[in-house]
Structures are given as structure tokens and as C-alpha cells.
């Protein structure tokens, strides 16, 4: 539906809470908190994966790329960029990026810092 209630809003924003140091050492005896690295990555993954099949297909990637890029790039160029992206990430050969592959590609990136906002302090 097209409405967001406060709970949903809060849940979305909770993904962006920075990871505190004391949380890192806590052992996981409950469900993983919403702002863990894996959940943050999952949030970004869901932005791509519009039909929610847990895979980023070439079309979905193209759509997002099209939004991020200026009007000067032709469709073919964009298509080859999308192809290359999938090539780099894809390991099981299904021409789509699964969540595990997505995580692997971004293993060197400091996701905790990029997807954290300090609010309410």
C-alpha cells in the first residue's frame, strides 16, 4: 500500500543506526538487531530487488543505474555496464546477483560508516 505508519518508518530508520562498540562484542542470543551490517546490506539490496525474488536481475540493475546516471549515457552503454557488474559479482552463473554475492562484493567497503546516521543525540 502507499502509506507508511510510524512503526514502518521507525523500522526503516532503525537500519541506519550506527553500530555501537558495545554491541559488537555482545553475543547473539536473540534476533539480529536491525542495524547490523548484514541487515544494512539487506536494505540496500532490497532497493535493487524490486520484484522481491532475492536476486538482482539485469533489468533491475538497469533501472537503478538509469536513475543514478545522467542523460548522456546511451542505453547500450548502460547495458554493458550492467552486464559487467553482474559478471563481476556473479559466482553461480545465473546472471543475477544474489544476496550472498552482493555481500561478498562489498566486503571491503565500510558499510557501517556509509549507512549510518547519527540521530537523536
Amino acid at each position, binding site marked *: 500500500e502507499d502509506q507508511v505508519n510510524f512503526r514502518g518508518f521507525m523500522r526503516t*530508520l532503525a537500519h541506519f543506526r550506527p553500530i555501537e562498540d558495545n554491541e559488537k562484542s555482545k553475543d547473539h542470543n536473540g534476533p539480529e538487531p536491525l542495524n547490523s551490517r548484514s541487515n544494512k546490506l539487506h536494505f*540496500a539490496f532490497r532497493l535493487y530487488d524490486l520484484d522481491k525474488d532475492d536476486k538482482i536481475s*539485469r*533489468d533491475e540493475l538497469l533501472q537503478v543505474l538509469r536513475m*543514478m546516471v*545522467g542523460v548522456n549515457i546511451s542505453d547500450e552503454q548502460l547495458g554493458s555496464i550492467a552486464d559487467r557488474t553482474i559478471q563481476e559479482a556473479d559466482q553461480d552463473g545465473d546472471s543475477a546477483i544474489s544476496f550472498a554475492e552482493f555481500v561478498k562484493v562489498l566486503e571491503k*567497503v565500510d558499510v557501517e560508516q556509509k549507512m549510518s546516521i547519527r540521530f537523536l543525540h
Partner: protein
Amino acid sequence: GFHLYHRLPRLMPESCILIAIGALVGVIIFASDHKSPPVMNTSIYFLYLLPPIILEEGYFMPTRPFFENIGSILWWSVPGALLNSFGIGLSLYGVCQIEAFGLSDLNLLQNLLFGSMISAVDPVAALVVFEEASVNEQLYMMIFGESLLNDGITVVLYNIFIAFIQMHKYEEIESIDVLAGFARFFVVGLGGVLFGVVFGFVSALMTRFTSNVSAIEPLLVFMFSYLSYLSAETLYISGILAMTACAVTMKKYVEENVSQNSYTTIKYFMKMLSSVSETLIFVFMGVSTVGKNHEWNWAFISFTLLLCLIWRTLSVFALFYITNKFRTYPFTFKDQLIISYSGLRGASSFSLAFLLPDNLFPRKKLFITATLVVIYFTVYIQGITIGPLVRYLDVKKTNKKESINEEIHVRLMDHLKAGIEDICGHWSHYQLRDKFKKFDNKYLKKILIREHQPKSRIVSLYKKMEIKLAIEMAESGVKMSKPSTTSSQSRRNQPVQRLSPADVESMRDVLAHNLYQVRQRAPTYNRHNLCTYTNEKQAQEILIRQQHSFRQSCRKGNSLPWGRQANTAEVRYLSLPQGPGQLSGRKARRVTFTGKGSAL
């Protein structure tokens, strides 16, 4: 020439070239006349050359990040300046006591004065380097805030010490006088700020009524700022701080009131004036290098240099250690290193040195020489090396080769973060700011801003586009086609080709040039360029495209753009507006972004 040849700013800050030119001019004058070249005196500097620079700094200050970090900035500038001046002064006094250097006639007060003079930092050159290396906003604001406040504080200290020295008998200075000096420091500083704020409000009020005489609006702005400076100076409170406060206060309201042309005029004129002043000051500095008013003393000069560096580093690390306890974004060691290295001295210390009254300072020339040496050293050596240093420290952390995946995804995350920050960004601040905003909206804006807002550019663009699209629609009927969907589906079954490295490189280039930049919350500060227009162009492109696709989805007859239809590519874009009501909200947001000034 300097600005056209754009490789040069990467090599050295502009101050270097300016000083070199000044020195050249000085050499010419000296060689031809054998007379001392024209020099500045107090009135010229303080009345004419300094105010434009201060005004420009205050006016173009990005207010929101400044006030977000105001605690740290105040804590760093004020005690930092004090620590530096007293530290250098006292250490130099200690050095002077050593008989071997022949400096024992410099008493404590003179050394303290010298310390306060020499700790006047001019980090604008460092700021330019930072912009290129795109350091994080916090670091940027710290140095910016420091440069803004440092001028005022140093001048205040300078005046206090001169007043002390003018009480001839050194031994008669009792503790009461020292206390009076402290009190005066605070009065002068805070009084200046209050004064400036009052003037800012008055001038904002006046601009409310000038809709019919818009030609005098720039004049109003400049006149009031200058008035605030002059009147503050006559009352012996800090004119620099007054003018800064006036500019900051004024800016928000004046920008709403003033017509588009006046706004452009003000911006450009201010930049022009400040560039002129800065150039003149540096040229004077170069000119006076060549001349007969020098006195060289190895010990004094080398110790001064050494102590400047040592004390700055010390104060940085000490103060930031304490600040980091209270901040949520602590400054890393790398940040602190950069800050301590960016203590370039500039025109202010030179001018203050030059303006020392001769009768009180028999060894004035020594001071001038030492100041000049420090300036040259910091500007040339530190200025040239700070660029590579920043790049080295940054590059060390990031990977050399990013895959295309990483680039795209990281960019997505940056955009995402910027978007979410916009949604919730207002909450991350103190209650005080919310209260101020409410007060502002209820009272101040009603008083100070006119009824009929002039339309900003983006709103008129939007209107034009609406009209154009309406005409198009009427002419071409409802024919709509999406040629790209069919082609993409047919290509899906083709095998993916391996791409050569050359292709990858070209791809990376294409991406680098065409990926939209993440919208920055604070416009960056650059003395010589106004805000870049590429951001605005991108915003317009995005807006146009969103309007277009929204219209397409509307025209399809299916009023819900999120209807699940597998054969169209009209799958829901998460960023598209979801209804006509939201459209105006988005438009309003664009207005505050591309419009004038910071969105509070």
C-alpha cells in the same frame, strides 16, 4: 592566469604566487628608487582592506554545519588561540632570557604580543586543498570556523596587549589589570557578536521594504555591514566579530527579500572586493620584504618558527582530546594531524606586525622579519606539501582498485544516506535549534520577510515545463510507447560476453563522469568561485526526468503507478512521487535546495 591554468592550484596555494608577485614589484621599486616602497598604515588596513574579507567569509559561511559544530569550533578557536599566543609568547620570553642571543631587552609583554600576533592563522589556503581532497565535513567546518573566529580573537588580544604596553611602567601592572584584560576580552567578543546581530536584523528589516527600489538593495547590504564594523570599532568592541555576526544574521532574511538581480550582484561584488583586498595585502607583503626595515636574528627567528609548529600541534592534540569526549563523531588522529599541519599564517599576522607602533617597540624590525619568515615558511613549504599530505593520508586507507560493482553500490548507498538524512536530518540536533526555528517562523519571518515571495528559478522552470508538456500532450494525443522494454527482454537470453580490461577502463570513466553526485548538504566554501552549477543542472535533469516518467505513468490510464504489470517497465521506482499532492512537496524541497542559502 593562476586560475586559468588549473594544474597550478594543485601544486601550491594562491598566496604563494601573490607573495612572489609582490616581492617582484618590491624589487622593481627598490631597484629604481632606492626609497622604501609604499607601505600600509593602520587606517588603510583596518578600514579598507580587512572588512571585505571578513564580510565575504561571514556571508558565504555554510550556516548549518557551522552551528552543528559550534561547540567544538568555539572550544577549539578560543582556547586554541589563547593557548597558542600565551604559549609562544612565554616560551619566547624564556628564550630571550638566555643572554647569548642578545635578546634580553624584549620584555614579557612584548613577547606576549608577538605571540598573539603570530598565532593569527589564515587557513584559507588549507581550505582550498581540503576541498579538492574532499575531506569530511566536520574537518572542513573546524578549520573554517577557526579561520573565522581567529581573526577576531587575535585582534582583540593584540589590542589588549598594546593597551597594556602603553601603560608605561611595566611593574605597575597589577592583577586587577590582568583581570580587567580578561573581562575586556569577553566583553569585546560577545559585545561584537550582539552588535552584529542587531545590525543584521535592522538591515533585514529594511530590505523588506525595498521591493520598488531594488537597485539600492546591494548598497543597503554593504552599507549596513560596514556600518556595523565601524560603529563597533568606535565603541572599542570587536568590529570583526560584529561584521561576521551581521553577515550571518542578515543573509538568511536578505536572501528571501532581495530580488534575483540584487542577489547576484551582492554575491559577485562581495567576492570581487574580498579578492581585491586579499591580493593587495599579499602584494604589500611581498613589497615590504624587499626593503631596509629588517633585522635578522637567527635565534629569535628559528625559535619562533619552531615554537609555532610545536605549540600548534600541542594545542590541537590537547584540545581535541578533550573535545572528542563530547562529540559523537570523534576526530581521528589523521584529522588532528591535518589540522595541526594546516596552520598557515597569512596576511593578518603580517599586518599586525607592520602596525606595531614604533615608539613602543625599538625592535620592531625584528618582529617584522620574524613574522615574514614564518609566513613565507608556512605558506610555501606547508602550503605546497599539505596537498600531497592530505592525499597520501586519504589514499592510504582506500583501496587502489575498486570494482565497478563497488562504485555503483557505494554511490547508491551515498544517495540513500543523503535521502534518509534529509528525511530525518532535522532531528539530530539540539532542542535549542528547534526552538529557534519555531521562534523564527512565528515572529521573525513575519517581520522581516516580504509578503510576495519572488519566484526562484526552479519554480519558474517547473512552470515552463508544465506548460510545455501540456502543449505536447494536447498535440500528440495519448500515444505512448516504451521502446526499451522489448529490446531489453530480447537481450536477456544472449550470452554474456567477457569484457576486455580496456572496456572496463572506459566503463569506469563513463561512470565517473556521469554518475550523479550525491547532493551535499553544505555548499563548500571557496573564495574565488561561487557555487557550482553542476549540482543544479543535475537536480534539474532529475526533476525533468521524474516529471516525465510520472506523466507517462499517469497517461497510461492506470492512475496507480505502482500497479503490477509485468510487461511494462513501470515497476515502482522507490523515489517517484506517489501522488500529485506529494509533487508540490517535492517541488518545495527543490526550491530550498537550489534556491538561495542554506536550508535550515
